[in-house]
């Protein structure tokens, strides 16, 4: 294992950085050449070794497909009432039973998953973009701009998070037309970009001093070209890792907001508001409480494991607490 790492590290060291490939292709003896792997191949190899991450990825893909194709799988609709079949337990007709209005719980959990996963993904992506821009500008230009942007970031990190989300949801409802789903995504993105900004800033600060950036600048490249073609690709590892963990946090927060009744509004089901609906029937139909909660737990756990695996693969230096 240790030797394997060693070989890979040697291979990685002999491999020129991706941005430099066209600049200089050093002559490498054929014997070494066979073992040289691209950064991407190396990352994939490290990722494959992380069994939990692979398993989690498969579960997530399966879950995603299920939620996507639920209209084909289930014969029920998420809002189809049947008052003669209320609060049934799990069975062959209704796999996870029915809720207090006789709606099929399995269908509702899957539709809810569609919304929850959508919220998680969109929030992580838009937060990554906002954070990337803020952190990139701060790290690249430095000076007073860096100072100002980082103070704003600190401010956003300091305010009680859920409070602002709750008030922000009210604020958007009042001033912006649109569905509660769009509002929830918007408001969450506004409060999820700070870790991304800090990470990108850190990476940019160190990259700025590297020779290849200096070389690019010396050859007359514009700031935008240096940022997007030379620095950003090298910062992608930490950004992807952090975005993945952001998906988990966003799913949890969305479900908490919807559970309190301030997030995505019924009739659109999400895991959070399904749990809110279930509160009145804890004694008669405990399944209604179990299944959406287990779905959240499973999804978030898998995303977290995936993020852990991605960190090992893309960002090996960042591994928390693993000293060698």
């Amino acid at each position, binding site marked *: 294992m240790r030797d394997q790492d060693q070989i890979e590290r040697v291979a990685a060291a002999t491999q020129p950085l991706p941005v430099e490939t066209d600049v200089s292709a050093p002559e490498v003896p054929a014997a070494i050449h066979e073992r040289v792997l691209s950064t991407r191949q190396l990352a994939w190899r490290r990722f494959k070794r992380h069994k939990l991450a692979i398993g989690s990825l498969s579960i997530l893909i399966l879950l995603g497909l299920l939620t996507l194709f639920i209209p084909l799988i289930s014969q029920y609709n998420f809002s189809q009432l049947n008052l003669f079949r209320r609060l049934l337990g799990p069975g062959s007709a209704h796999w996870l039973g029915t809720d207090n209005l006789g709606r099929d719980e399995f269908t509702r959990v899957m539709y809810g998953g569609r919304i929850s996963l959508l919220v998680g993904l969109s929030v992580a992506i838009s937060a990554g973009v906002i954070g990337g821009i803020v952190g990139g500008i701060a790290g690249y230009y430095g000076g007073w701009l860096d100072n100002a942007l980082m103070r704003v970031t600190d401010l956003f990190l300091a305010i*009680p998070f859920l409070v602002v989300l709750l*008030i922000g949801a*009210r604020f958007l409802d009042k001033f912006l037309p649109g569905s509660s789903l769009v509002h929830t995504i918007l408001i969450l993105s506004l409060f999820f970009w700070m870790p991304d900004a800090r990470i990108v800033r850190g990476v940019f600060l160190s990259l700025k001093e590297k020779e290849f950036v200096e070389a690019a600048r010396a050859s007359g490249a514009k700031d935008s070209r240096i940022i997007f073609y030379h620095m950003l690709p090298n910062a992608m590892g930490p950004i992807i890792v952090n975005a993945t963990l952001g998906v988990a946090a966003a799913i949890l927060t969305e479900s908490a907001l919807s559970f*309190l009744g301030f997030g995505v509004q019924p009739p659109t089901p999400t895991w959070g508001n399904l*749990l809110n609906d279930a509160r009145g029937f*804890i004694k008669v139909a405990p399944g209604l409480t179990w299944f959406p909660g287990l779905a959240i737990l499973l999804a978030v756990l898998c995303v977290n494991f995936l993020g852990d695996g991605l960190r090992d693969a893309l960002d090996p230096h960042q591994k928390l607490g*693993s000293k060698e």
Partner: protein
Amino acid sequence: MYRYIIRRLIFAIPILLISSVLVFAVVRSTFDPLGGAAINPRVSKADIIRVKHELGLDKSPVQQYWTWLTKFLRGNWGSSLLSDRPVYPDIQSALVNTIVLGGIATAFSLLVGVGIGVYSALRQYSWFDHFSTSVAFLGLSMPNFWFALLLQIFFGVYLTKWLHLTSPIFYTAGLSQPGSSGFNLIDRARHLVLPMLVLSVQIIAVYSRYMRASMLEVLHSDYLRTARAKGLKESRVIVRHAMRNALIPLTTQVAIDVGAIAGGLIITEAIFEYPGMGRYFVDALFRGDYQQILPWMMVAVFFVIIFNLAADILYAVLDPRIRYA
């Protein structure tokens, strides 16, 4: 050192003022106290104008802010729009309840989290380390409101049924038994256990990971080797030399987390109907009562700012390597 602390304290004043402007602007533009009345056909235009005048809402925003701030600083926090109850005593008792709950949960989590973190670091890659890592992952991924619901089912319904009890071992709602008068420690504790557990799950997960990481870092440092080479007992090396240094980053983290308690226990308090700050806020939010929300926000923001400041100062005091220029 003292100059550093004094400068940081003075610097906190403009930050507090800026936050008060932000809080006022956001809350006042979000909540329209007469929005319901304006669309109610039974309320006459003249009445609306009269009430607006009484509340001072017909003045300019800057004037409104100034009147509110000066009153607020003098201790006149106003009263609820709907019930006309003065806000101050309610927020005060809510704050005390929240601090009790949050304080106990933090102390408990610290004890457990630090213990787990130190032990996993000392026995890195042992079965205990792997086990605690998995449990931490589980704790971080668990939606805490769902965990709260499960605890309520278990203690409120099943356990009571199995053990043939007349009342649950740990109550699932409220602060004390309805109808009871005076302070009863045992009764209070039976109400506190479940919300405390719910809060602790995530905090323990975070603190144990944190402690493990910083402990591992310290364990590989040179001064620890020196301490061992001096012939100190292993227990003394671990406790006095390693743990004390490893606790520094955690201390500042805890200070910041404690500051967030005042406005941060919303979900747990809502589920357990615990009469603290979080529940006060959610109730006020549902009613859209800006008179209650404004002072509430100020208290929450005040705590965050003060404890962030405390974290900075603590860090400088504990770690002489930090330059406080």
